[in-house]
């Protein structure tokens, strides 16, 4: 596998995969920060992040997944390289190596944006210390839906020559996933979409916010964390991986 990962690294030379991923992450951070924080938000800042960021992640992480998976797989289609690789290595291993490489890029971006969020929050002057346990939980609940979305995008990118298919499937999923966050009454919608799990795994709620007083009397609280959906998502990841790998193995080149 090390040999295959080394080859993946060599292939991406001059493709600027890391740079592209970092630019998208930077764009995401530039969209969130800097912004004006009222005294109330400075008081509530650490928890407010955990309430707001899943929405941002539900847009940017799938978008990043589309870009990274497509750039990684498109080189194989453009160069007609899959038929060459398939006679030198087991197809399952080709699928795995590319998936691992792409996931490494994605996880780097997830961790960087997580770290940058904490850093920017300190710079903004949020009151108190970072609730590290909750932030680690947030990191986990950002990473796992991203893995699920990436496996989906990876399989599409590898199996379809036309990357427009990948883009539209990802864009439609992202739209419904994000849209589902604005429809709390339709919980089944976000639970049935992998893009909706950024919302399903949200564990901070906003209480006592009113139009008149806004954040003056508002507070953010940790809601009950239902680990069932986390387990469901892990299961979905495994199923998508097994199915995606099998589809690629059976694909005629």
């Amino acid at each position: 596998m090390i040999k295959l990962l080394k080859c993946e690294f060599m292939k991406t030379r001059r493709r600027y995969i890391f740079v592209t991923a970092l630019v998208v992450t930077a764009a995401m951070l530039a969209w969130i920060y800097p912004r004006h924080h009222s005294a109330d938000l400075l008081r509530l800042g650490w928890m407010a992040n955990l309430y707001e960021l899943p929405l941002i992640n539900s847009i940017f992480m799938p978008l990043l997944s589309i870009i990274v998976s497509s750039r990684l797989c498109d080189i194989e289609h453009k160069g007609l390289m899959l038929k060459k690789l398939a006679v030198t290595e087991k197809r399952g291993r080709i699928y795995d190596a590319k998936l691992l490489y792409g996931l490494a890029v994605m996880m780097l971006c997830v961790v960087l944006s997580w770290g940058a969020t904490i850093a920017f929050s300190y710079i903004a002057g949020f009151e108190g210390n970072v609730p590290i346990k909750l932030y680690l939980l947030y990191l986990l609940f950002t990473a796992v839906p991203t893995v699920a979305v990436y496996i989906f995008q990876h399989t599409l990118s590898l199996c379809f020559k036309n990357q427009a298919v990948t883009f539209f499937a990802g864009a439609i999923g992202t739209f419904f996933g994000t849209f589902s966050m604005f429809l709390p009454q339709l919980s089944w919608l976000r639970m049935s979409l992998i893009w909706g799990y950024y919302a399903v795994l949200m564990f901070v709620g906003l209480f006592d916010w009113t139009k008149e007083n806004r954040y003056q009397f508002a507070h953010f609280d940790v809601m009950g964390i239902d680990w069932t959906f986390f387990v469901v998502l892990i299961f979905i990841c495994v199923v998508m991986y097994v199915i995606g790998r099998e589809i690629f193995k059976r694909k005629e080149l």
Partner: protein
Amino acid sequence: MNEIVKTMGLTKLYKGAAAVSNLNMRVNEGRIYGFLGPNGAGKTTTLKMLLSLIRPTAGEIEIMGKPLTPNTRIQILRGIGSLIESPSFYGHLTGAENLKILQTLLDVPKKNIDKVLQIVRLDNQRGKKASAYSLGMKQRLGLAGALLSFPKLLILDEPTNGLDPSGIQEMRELIKSLPKEYGMTVIVSSHLLSEIDQMAEDVGIIANGKMMYQGALDNLHDVDKSKSLEEIFLDLTGKEQSL
């Protein structure tokens, strides 16, 4: 003489229509086997089945004395060099970088890169991006990739496609030299009779997915001495088929 490739009743159906039908191919070791047939006869489909790029609907394949099964597949395929349809390469990488990736995957000595670049006469262009290569150079890069492990068996699907006359001649001479210099067996497909006539020792003629003739090229000349090779070929493949 050892048979390095053997197919038994090889068949491929696409939506019920046979692209290759009950094909029994026999390729002798150390020889150049010309796989000849009109466009759409089933040459590429057959070669892709030999390389497990597509699955046969029925039949068996034996390569280097071993049956081609999911368990033996990679072990067998690593002993085969191939160039199917258009050459494969990463356009954003240089010729040498492309070969470096294959060398790493195949786990063959690094010096093979220089050697194959010399053989295909791309050593002076090794630092140039593959996307900037001419068609002939791309074809030669594809061949260099196929030769990289100095395999026992080389499968070339229409390797002279798109080349100019001097490129065709150069490629032909190179292919002809491989069995003698490196002990390779070469299967080379073409829809051009003259091409195969100048290169191959044995020939398999396929039309409508069926093997119409198989044996030494010299014997084909003897099928009907009153007819030219072209006429014999047309008789075998059906006159309505294009050459």
